[in-house]
Structures are given as structure tokens and as C-alpha cells.
């Protein structure tokens, strides 16, 4: 949308936008440039100096089987949390969209998980899923060892995925509900007149019509799976056992700040940033083509 009414002033806009630009330059562009520099050098942990190594850092991570495992794990993690969270949220939004009496109460509670800090949820879910504690513990009493995220990597991953998905429910729900409510009621009614039953309408009409939202959420969830996962993993498993819950962000943190390999971490960071930019770019391409209601 282009505006018609503008102000013209040679100085004022710069004064207005200046502070923000400075912050962005200082905390984003400069550091990113510097990280880029790190990624092409070997930086001494104590900052004593560095040497230019061209693409060695990138080659090192790309040659590292474990790195690819982490990438694959991140992808798996992202897909699972995204899928699970969006499915639950969509399911709820569809029913809430029927707007029966009292729906408002359900609706407002569904938003709550949005407010919870990932580490807080992590701590809570860690208790819920602790093998010896009271909730899952009873199952373990019946079948000993059936659930043990402390030693079983798969269990640990499942535990984090569930927690992450839970955290995302609120956000996804809001967007789905808004998208569903934005569909003109007459389209649903036209579907009903055409003989389609609710489930059929869901798949033939509502889902395709909220496709842009689905896609937007897909991207936002994928991005959030790179970010929120840190707090969860750090409070729940610290990447273990045996690195089975180590995802890309966690590895960056771990290699960089725990392993003191700033250069390797910087290279990983650059890769991750490119990945996220690529995802966002894909979304924008899609949004351009988004469906319009007439």
C-alpha cells in the first residue's frame, strides 16, 4: 500500500529514525560483520589475536558428521514441534470458531502458554516427565525403565518437543482463530449450500483459505524452534544425554561459550542466520502470492 500524504523535511526524519538506526548498526550490523570476520579467522579465546583461515571454519563444521547430525536433529525437532503445536492449535481454533456459548473463556485460557518463559516451562515439564517423580513415576513403577529421559536420548527429545509444542499453542491458536474468523461467513455458508459437511468444508474451504496463515505460522514456528529451544534445552537436558538433544542454537552456545571456540561458533551462527533468512525469504515470496478474499 502506497501512501499519498507525505511530509517533506530534510532533517526531521533522520532525527526520528536516527536512534533506532544507530542501535541496529551497533547491535546488529557491526557485530554481524565482526562475526563474519571471526568465522574466517581463528580467534584466540582470550582475544590475544587471530589468524585468517579462509573457509576452514566452515569446512570444519561441514566435514563434521556431528554437525550434520545436529542440523538433522534441529530439522526434526523443528518439524515435530511445529507440526504438533500447529495441529493442536488449529484443532482448537476450529472448534472455538464455532462460537458456541462460553467459548470466550476457553479462548482466553488457550492463549496462556504464550506468556510462559521457555525455561520456566522447561523446569515444569522436567518435573512432569521426571522418571522418578510422581507423575510419570507411577508408569515407571509398573514398567521399570520404560521412561527415562536422563539416559534415553529419544525420550529426552520427545520431552522437549512436547514442551516446546505446548509453549507454541497460544501463539498459533490466536493466529488460526483470527484467520478463520476472517473468512467471510458467506463462504462457509456457500459451502453448506453446496452440500459440504463441516469436515469437508474444513479441508476444501477453510484450510486453503487460511493457507497464508498456515504458512506464516510454519515459518514463525520454525524460527522459534531455533530460538526458544535454547532455554528449554538448557533447563531440561543441557543437550544430553550424549548430545541427543543438542540443536543448532545449543551447539553454537556450547561450542562457542563452553567450548571456547568462538570462530567455529561464529561460522555456525552465520550458517544459521542464512538459514533463517532463507526461510523468511520463502515466506515473503509466498505472502506475495497470498490468496485474497473478494
Amino acid at each position, binding site marked *: 500500500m502506497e501512501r499519498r500524504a507525505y511530509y517533506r523535511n530534510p532533517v526531521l526524519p533522520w532525527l526520528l529514525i536516527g536512534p533506532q538506526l544507530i542501535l541496529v548498526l551497533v547491535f546488529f550490523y557491526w557485530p554481524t560483520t565482526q562475526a563474519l570476520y571471526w568465522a574466517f579467522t581463528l580467534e584466540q579465546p*582470550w582475544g590475544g589475536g587471530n589468524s585468517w583461515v579462509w573457509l576452514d571454519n566452515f569446512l570444519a563444521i561441514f566435514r563434521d558428521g556431528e554437525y550434520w547430525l545436529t542440523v538433522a536433529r534441529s530439522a526434526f525437532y523443528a518439524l515435530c514441534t511445529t507440526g504438533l503445536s500447529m495441529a493442536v492449535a488449529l484443532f482448537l481454533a476450529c472448534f472455538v470458531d464455532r462460537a458456541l456459548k462460553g467459548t470466550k473463556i476457553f479462548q482466553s485460557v488457550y492463549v496462556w502458554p504464550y506468556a510462559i518463559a521457555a525455561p520456566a516451562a522447561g523446569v515444569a515439564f522436567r518435573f512432569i516427565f521426571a522418571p522418578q517423580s510422581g507423575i510419570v513415576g507411577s508408569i515407571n513403577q509398573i514398567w521399570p525403565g520404560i521412561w527415562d529421559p536422563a*539416559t534415553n536420548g529419544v525420550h529426552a527429545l520427545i520431552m522437549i518437543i512436547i514442551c516446546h509444542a505446548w509453549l507454541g499453542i497460544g501463539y498459533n491458536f490466536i493466529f488460526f482463530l483470527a484467520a478463520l474468523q476472517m473468512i467471510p461467513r458467506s463462504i462457509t455458508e456457500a459451502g453448506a449450500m453446496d452440500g459440504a459437511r463441516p469436515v469437508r468444508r474444513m479441508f476444501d474451504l477453510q484450510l486453503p483459505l487460511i493457507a497464508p496463515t498456515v504458512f506464516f505460522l510454519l515459518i514463525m514456528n520454525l524460527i522459534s524452534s531455533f530460538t526458544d529451544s535454547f532455554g528449554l534445552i538448557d533447563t531440561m537436558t543441557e543437550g*544430553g544425554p550424549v548430545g541427543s538433544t543438542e540443536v543448532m542454537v545449543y551447539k553454537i552456545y556450547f561450542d562457542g561459550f563452553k567450548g571456547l571456540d568462538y570462530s567455529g561458533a561464529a561460522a555456525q551462527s552465520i550458517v544459521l542466520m542464512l538459514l533463517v533468512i532463507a526461510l523468511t525469504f520463502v515466506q515473503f515470496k509466498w505472502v506475495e502470492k497470498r490468496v485474497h478474499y473478494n
Partner: protein
Amino acid sequence: QTKFEFWYGLSGDLSERVQDMCRGFNESQSDYEIVCVSQENYDNTLQNTIAAYRANKQPTVTQIFDAGTLDLMLSGAYMPVRQLMEDNGYDIDWDNYLSGIASYFSTSKGEMLSLPFNNSTAVIYYNTDALEKVGFEGTPQTWEEVETVARAMKEAGYECPIAFDPSGAWQWFEQFSAIHNQPIATKGNGYGGLDAEMVVSQGKFVDQLTWIKKMYDEGIIVHKSKDAGETANDAFVNGKCQITSSSIADHGTFGKQAAEGVHWTDAMLPIWEGTERTNSLVGGASLWTLKGKSDEEYKGAAAFFNYLAQPEQAQTWSTITGYVPVTMAGFEAMKANGFYDGAPYKGRELAIESLTFTPPTENSRGIRLGNYASIRAEMVKTMQDVLFNDRPVLEALQAFDAKGNEILRRFEQTYKGAQLP
């Protein structure tokens, strides 16, 4: 009055003891005020020190664990302790330090770079009631005996004969290698240069880990860790587990925390029958003075070091924790006092005995590997991998060596051209 900071990596009870110490120093004089900040654990202390140093906000004194020693040595970020003390007019008898300890923190020429402070070694702890129950007199000295008593305990209904925490790579792996005179890396565990290579998969630790795995599968060794909700130490002091291996530093804590009715004792780490025991590795940490502070602050630091070196202080510190006295004189004095003869301190002398069992060999004098903290973390993963994921031991250790070599090469490249001091 000059204020200066001291960061340390102890927490819980030990952290309280450090604070006592700091208070003592502050009360003993009025020129300086030391501010002691706990960074929770050794890893954090190293990381935070580095972060702070890069930001020019470093403390004057920081406590760095054994595994970070080489990192510090090459950092160029420290002021050698010997020089510090000389500059400020303190005369310290550097030769009085236990030789194993001194060599860990000194250059190849013997110059001490950091001040040994809380030093330890690993021992094994037994629940004496459990030993009694299975009819074992004294304490097992070999792994064969350990296996026998542990099996017997299992028979006798103890659910957790041996507590094992994979994050205890130090005691289970490094100390094992040292007392069995096994190299971890070539070039004398790195003392010979930055180009050392890992050799763990070629030594006795392969069998040791195989044994651990076997015991674990039989339920004789039980996994206890923070992740699992209870650490090995906690399980031991609660009486849930009967045998554990840990630092002598915990001797004091165990004494305080042992649940009612839990009786315990310690022993030198067991060795396998048919092997010669070598001295064990010095553990714990030393105090490093960082560059970039004012002369006044250095004066304070020197005064603090001097305070710590006073025989009374050294003795108090050893008493309230389990850390060994770091000077010959201190040890002799305490022995002469009869400190080690009765409860609750009996057993601590074993640490010194272990540390000085033989003159240090190439493999037991210490570890001089770059970014060793990361290598140790890899060992933790490796042990978990074997235990939890049934990864074949040899394969796992070969992978560990490979990974370790990567870290070493990276370190070598990062400090290209640097010489070990």
C-alpha cells in the same frame, strides 16, 4: 582501601568456606577488601573469566581448575604468581610446595605461574556398613575386589552397589589412567608440545570402560547424575548407593551431610591386579592473577596470597574442606599434630599418599592439553554413549580420540607458533 575481586568455582558448602576465608582476610587487615564471587562451577569460572577479560572487566584473581591450566598458560592474560609476590616484596619458599602440585602449575623451567590453592585427588568412598554386611574387612584395593563386594552387595539386596556419574570423567578416567600409568595423549600428555595426539583407545581404559559397561548392564553400577535427579554423591550420603568415587575435597562435605546411620570411609582408588600403582593426578584448582589491573589491586592480591600461604590458614582450609595441604611443611605439621589419626579427618592422608605414591611419571605428572575442558566433556559423552546407547567401547573411544585430536589441532592452529612455557 583497595577493593579487588576474586572469582571462584565452588558452590554449596565449599563456597561458604571460601567466603569464610575471604572474611578472615578482610578482617585481618584494613588496606584491602577482597570481594569473592562464586561462579557456581569451574567451567563457568573459566568461561566467565574469559568473557570478562575480553570485556576488560576481569577480576584480579580467579580460580582455574586443572583442566584449564594450559588455556591460561597460553592466554598471555596472567601475571605469574612468582613475579607478583616478588614485586610486592613477599618472600615465598616456592620449593616447599609438594612437587606434584608445583609441577602442574609451573613452566617447564619450574617457574610457578599460579598459586596452588585447593588441590585434591580422587579417592573411592565405601559405605562401611555395607562392606560389613557382605563380610569384607578393610577396604577393597583392587577393582577385582570392588567387583566382588559390589556383587555381594547386590545379592544382599542393595539396589545400588556402585554409584556412577559419567560427568566424573576426572576420577573414572583421568585418575584411572594416571594410577595405571596410562597415557591420555602422546608427548607426555602434552607436556612435550601442542602437537600431542590422543591415545586413549590404545590403552587400558578400553578394558576399564568395558568393565564399567558390564557392571552397568548387570545393575551393579548404577547411573546417578544431576540429569537423573540425584547425583552420585547425594546417593552415597543418603545411603542409597554404597560405593562412589569422588574428590577428596568431598571428604569434609560427606562428613557433614551423611544421613544418620550412614557410616563410610575412603580409600585410594583401586587398581587392577597385576598392575603397578603410580601416583595419582593433582586435581582441584589454582589461583591466577590476571593482567590489566592496577598496582594497588596487585598489592592486595599478593597480600591475599600471602594470607593463604600462612600455615594456620592452610591448615584451616584443609580442615574444613577435604583439600590437601599444598606444602610439605603444612602436611608434615598436620601429620605431626595427629590431625589424620581420628575421625572426622581420618582418611584424608590417603590423598597425599596417593598423590605421592611414586614419583610422577610422564603419564601421572599432569595433563597439558589445550582446551582440555572440552576434551573432558567429550569423554563424558563417550561414557554416556557406551552406557546408554550400547555403543561398542572401542569404537566409542576411537571416536573420542578423533574428536579429541580435532580439538587439539584446532587449539594448536589457534596458537600457531606458541611455545609451551
